[in-house]
């Protein structure tokens, strides 16, 4: 037999004040009316036998009082919730894993799934034996130990109550690692090591997983001493949800002048769904699709073509896709896509004369987004050059077969020449150079086919630590890119045009004749020239780590979340800013430096098929084990309070009868 406290201090105070109150009221009530009689002689003899035992006599005389006290005592006992542990009651350890991912926001009737999970977990805590301890871990894409092992039920309940819903994905690994801490201590054993005896003993624990499924496990996890119980949340009824699982917008590569928005929609309900789609640009309705029909479990793609005729207005802006449907999960019925202002890139080219390069910089695409200024080597000595390069007035300086005395405050591309820094080294001039491969993952050299490019002579390039090798050759790296105080320096170890001693120009490579050359120049303008990279900004998932780049390396930038909260971020390595606080869905605004105007925007969308899929699985695979949905909560305690309550009601009935019939026992 054990007891559970289910009342607060205040509740106990009120309850315990009832018995004294009854006694008090009883004494007040027993102000008997005095009546003078000839003699109490006969009366006394009539009630004489009651005087045999005074206490017994009082007890009998106050039978109503005793019944009332008994009634209250039974109530108090019932509130104490006496019970027997139906299962073994010895020192159980419980680990409660509460899913707080986005899909737990789904409503089931009047409650959300998270509220149901919390309620059921509370029931479990209430049913704990006093010797048991419990631990609460909440998890979405990352886990948090809300409360470590304790047997303090009030604390557990309070901490449980503090778990808030998130918009994040579901990732179980971290939560399981945290849960298995005590259950599966690291076992390292050395033969003959006396310290091995001090290793922690594994403590068996019950793992209660309150989730609606959609759980992702990256690693193979062994549960070890954890005894898992999967408690599905939200399987009371079939879900009804349609969600946007992908949304992106970009320029139509086939048809310049058009912006294309793609959306992928997923129906996780068991009924076909019909709804309207609306596309907004900065709050104005741009396009709509009515009566989009989606079969049960089906995925459909929708695309919108937005004419470039409104390009001026959409050069920078926010696209919002809204699905007009009333379903269980609201947050996946909306998605954003962001276009950032395409910046004019300022490029300074210093060359003794390079027709191929100058020609490549004059394409329509480049001239639209970049202002190119070409000067010869004498320009390096002028005051104008110093003004330009010391104030970040240019984004990129291309040095063709020349080098400055001092590195400029801009990205650089050195062609056939090393930067004036000791960290850059060159190998001996060799011939021929056979280009082998380009690092296709780097935006500077992606999509380049260099296999047929011939190079007469060149040298190997090695840069400071952290330098990336972009083009490999028989000599080694002939193109590399390295970091310098928030700027990047690219160095190419061969020239395009060589000047002979008599001043005649001689082609060193046939690269300009290949299609890859203008593409490379385009990449240089886009990447090193900061020509705003992509027009359309990538959309992120909630909780994702977001890397923000700026044109100019500011000490810090400010990010404004959708809820207007601002956060300042200091510059990290490689001229990037790491934003980790992408909890909310919506548009985040970036203010660079001290700017008062928005410089960039990015969107955080819940475009996840796992979270939009509200179907609750019957079993979960945890590592090597498959866990069936259980109803373990019923196996907890056998409680007696109902019987006590019934007994107290009977007592109340007896009291009522005695009071009315004036029975004198």
């Amino acid at each position, binding site marked *: 037999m054990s007891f559970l406290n289910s009342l607060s201090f205040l509740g106990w105070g009120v309850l315990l004040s009832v018995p004294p109150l009854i006694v008090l009221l009883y004494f007040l009530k027993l102000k*008997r009316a*005095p009546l*003078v*009689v*000839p003699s*109490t002689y006969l009366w*006394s*003899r009539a009630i004489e036998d009651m005087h045999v035992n005074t206490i017994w006599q009082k007890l009998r005389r106050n039978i109503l009082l005793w019944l009332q006290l008994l009634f209250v005592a039974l109530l108090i006992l019932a509130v104490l919730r006496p019970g027997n542990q139906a299962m073994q009651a010895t020192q159980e350890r419980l680990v409660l894993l509460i899913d707080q991912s986005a899909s737990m926001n789904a409503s089931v009737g009047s409650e959300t799934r998270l509220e149901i999970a919390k309620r059921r977990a509370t029931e479990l805590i209430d049913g704990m034996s006093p010797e048991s301890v419990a631990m609460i871990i909440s998890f979405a894409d990352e886990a948090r130990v809300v409360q470590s092992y304790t047997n303090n039920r009030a604390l557990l309940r309070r901490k449980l109550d503090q778990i808030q819903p998130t918009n994040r994905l579901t990732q179980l690994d971290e939560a399981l690692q945290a849960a298995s801490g005590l259950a599966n201590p690291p076992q390292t054993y050395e033969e003959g090591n006396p310290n091995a005896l001090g290793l922690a003993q594994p403590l068996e624990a019950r793992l209660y997983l309150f989730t609606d499924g959609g759980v992702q496990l990256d690693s193979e996890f062994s549960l070890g001493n954890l005894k898992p119980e999967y408690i599905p949340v939200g399987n009371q009824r079939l879900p009804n949800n349609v969600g946007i699982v992908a949304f992106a917008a970009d320029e139509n590569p086939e048809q310049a002048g058009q912006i294309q928005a793609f959306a992928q929609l997923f129906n996780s309900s068991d009924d076909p769904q019909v709804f309207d789609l609306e596309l907004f640009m900065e709050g104005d309705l741009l396009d709509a699709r009515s009566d989009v029909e989606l079969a049960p479990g089906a995925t459909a793609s929708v695309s919108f073509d937005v004419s470039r005729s409104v390009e001026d207005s959409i050069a920078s802006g926010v696209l919002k896709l809204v699905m007009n449907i009333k379903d269980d999960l609201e947050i996946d019925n909306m998605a954003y896509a962001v276009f950032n202002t395409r910046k004019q890139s300022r490029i300074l080219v210093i060359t003794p004369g390079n027709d191929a390069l100058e020609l490549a910089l004059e394409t329509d695409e480049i001239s639209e987004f970049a202002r190119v200024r070409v000067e010869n080597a004498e320009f390096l000595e002028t005051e104008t050059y110093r003004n330009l390069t010391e104030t970040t007035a240019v984004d990129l300086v291309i040095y063709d077969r020349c080098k400055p005395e001092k590195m400029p405050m801009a990205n650089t591309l050195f062609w056939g020449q090393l930067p004036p820094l000791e960290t850059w080294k060159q190998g001996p001039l060799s011939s021929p150079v056979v280009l082998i491969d380009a690092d296709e993952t780097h935006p500077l050299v992606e999509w380049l086919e260099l296999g047929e490019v011939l190079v007469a002579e060149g040298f190997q390039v090695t840069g400071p630590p952290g330098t990336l090798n972009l083009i490999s050759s028989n000599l080694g790296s002939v193109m590399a890119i390295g970091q310098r105080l928030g700027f990047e320096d690219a160095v190419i170890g061969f020239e395009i045009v060589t000047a002979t001693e008599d001043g005649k120009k001689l082609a060193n490579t046939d690269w300009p004749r290949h299609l890859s050359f203008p593409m490379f120049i385009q990449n240089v303008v886009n990447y090193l020239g900061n020509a705003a990279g992509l027009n359309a900004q990538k959309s992120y998932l909630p909780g994702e780590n977001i890397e923000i780049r700026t044109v100019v390396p500011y000490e810090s930038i400010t990010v404004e979340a959708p809820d207007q909260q601002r956060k300042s971020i200091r510059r990290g390595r490689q001229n990037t800013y790491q934003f980790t606080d992408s909890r909310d869905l919506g548009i985040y605004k970036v203010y660079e430096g001290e700017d008062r105007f928005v410089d960039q925007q990015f969107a955080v969308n819940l475009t996840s098929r796992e979270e939009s899929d509200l179907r609750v699985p019957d079993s979960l695979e945890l590592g090597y084990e498959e866990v069936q949905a259980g109803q373990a909560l019923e196996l907890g305690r056998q409680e007696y309070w109902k019987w006590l309550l019934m007994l107290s009601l009977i007592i109340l009935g007896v009291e009522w009868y005695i009071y009315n019939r*004036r029975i004198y026992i």
Partner: protein
Amino acid sequence: MPRTPSQDLLSPQLLAQLERLELVTRKVFRGRMKGERRSQRKGQSVEFADFRNYVPGDDLRFIDWNLYARLDRLFLKLFLEEEDLHFYALVDCSRSMDFGEPSKLTFAKQLAASLGYIGLCRADRVKVESLASGLRSAAPSLRGKSSLRRLIDHVDQFTPGEDQGLLEGVRQFCLRNPGQGILVLITDLMDKSGYESALRLLVSQRIDVYVIHVLSQEEINPEVQGDLRLVDSEDQDQAEVTISRPLLQKYERTLRAFVGSARDFCAKRGITYLQTTSHQPIDQLVAHYLRQRGLVR
């Protein structure tokens, strides 16, 4: 016409009825004075009663010389004796007697006066006392019909609450009145210390004891309800009761047992016991019940 105490206690009709009665005693008592009562003793009246043999020492004046002449033997002529009777009425004046409609005390006073009047009519010596008489001036010893007013005046002075307890009252009475006669004790016997020793004391005297046990209606059939704190009128003793049917039944049984034990107690000791209620008419009581009990005839 001003009310007289006699009208309060005894109505003329009752007086007329009482005049025809006389008090009777089963025991032989020597009266102090000649009375109207024919004694069971042989005496010196004119009425012949019997003869008996002469024994030396007898009064020679009563020898029947005619018979001596005829039979040559000495016989004594016996005559009936007429003598008076001592009648005592002892009224319990405790506070508990002040209950009932009419009150038990009024009833007791009426009864004492009635019996006293019977005695006065027969030239008996009548003395009506209350149990508290020891605390006051002694009661007058009355004789003759003309003493009715004094008797009633005296009885009328009895007030409730001047009691000193049944036993003490009886003891005082016995000390004051060592003589023989008839004693009518009118009481409710509600004495916490018990009535037994008082009655035993009376039995030890040479008197013919009658106990008239008066109960009021509210004692026989109490009409009470609810949670009560009963206060004893005499000693302020309190008893908290919650009136219920079973309790009333219990009370009834207790009362029956009380009356029964008193009757048994008296019967065993030769005391004539009569239980009555305060609302019983006096004439009926005297003419029927007391006559049946042999107190009057």
